[in-house]
């Protein structure tokens, strides 16, 4: 559960990369916001179909993007999936995992939209 002080995102990496270029940081966040929803839906579809090879591939694509936004909770999850053989992914990923993943993304989106206003 999210506490009052807990933040899912951390823009340290983006700030370092952006090197004071606020427009670039905002552009990257907006790009992340615009592409990630489709990624989540695709990941959920692959989960429902039990297509673990493609699920792994999709998670692999989503990992660096989540990491770029400092969403470390997802980075760890994706890293575990990355290191599992496809046949074992189904044992690691449950409906609860997907629900939690969507929750983390939802909270992260809200935080990032707020961050854009104050950058």
């Amino acid at each position: 559960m999210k506490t009052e002080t807990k933040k899912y995102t951390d823009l340290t990496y983006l700030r370092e990369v952006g090197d004071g270029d606020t427009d670039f940081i905002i552009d990257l966040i907006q790009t992340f916001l615009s592409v990630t929803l489709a990624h989540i839906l695709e990941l959920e579809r692959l989960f429902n179909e039990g297509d673990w090879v493609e699920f792994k591939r999709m998670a692999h694509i989503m990992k660096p993007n989540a990491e770029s936004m400092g969403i470390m909770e997802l980075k760890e999850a994706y890293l575990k999936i990355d290191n599992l053989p496809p046949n074992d992914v189904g044992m690691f990923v449950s409906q609860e995992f997907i629900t939690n993943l969507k929750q983390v993304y939802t909270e992260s989106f809200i935080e990032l939209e707020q961050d854009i206003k104050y950058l």
Partner: protein
Amino acid sequence: MNCIVIEDSEVQRKLICHYIEKTDYLTFKRDFVDAVQAVSYLRNESVDLIFLDISMPVMSGMEFLKSFESDAQVILFTSHEEYALEAFEYNVIDYLVKPVSYARFMKAVNKARAGFEKNDNEASDEIFVKVNSVFEKVNITEILWIEALADYVIINTDERKYTVLSSMKSITSKLPSKDFMRVHRSSIIRLDKISKIDNGVIEIGGNKLIAIGRSYKKEVMERLVTI
């Protein structure tokens, strides 16, 4: 060094393009969301460095490396270390784990730059060109400019012209990049032969005028030492 980026993730692509723009000796040419588009581009254009993602739909980075012959150096983006060993068979000089820090990016780029400059320094002052059925020696320092004419290139020196069955891409790869530069789709010039540039037109060898292509303008100005 001219470079392209092949990466399907828009976020990661923007990051790398940003790094390239921050780096003085890299010139960003184009980015591609898949390797198939890049293959088509590279049939007509020569680049020095390719930033290549391994995990892509349609054609993976490894399939791209296996199918396409290029002199360009390659820096891979991957977290799959199992590809690393195989990748080094294909002119791959380094591989980076996403998301990439600028410091790590620079380490890889510096390796590429060292290789690039070594190739330039080792280049001979002479090349042999096939004119009709005869191989003729041309001193590279005497070349003023090269122009494309259909399936041929015309090499212009002070003394004479050599008409050679070749492509601009092929001839570019044989010339030292520190001395020569493509300034138009159909023109390569020797930098130290430029006498002046006026309104997007280069004067070379005292009387020859060559227009700078729109997409080459920025790079031309960056390569000239101006006050």
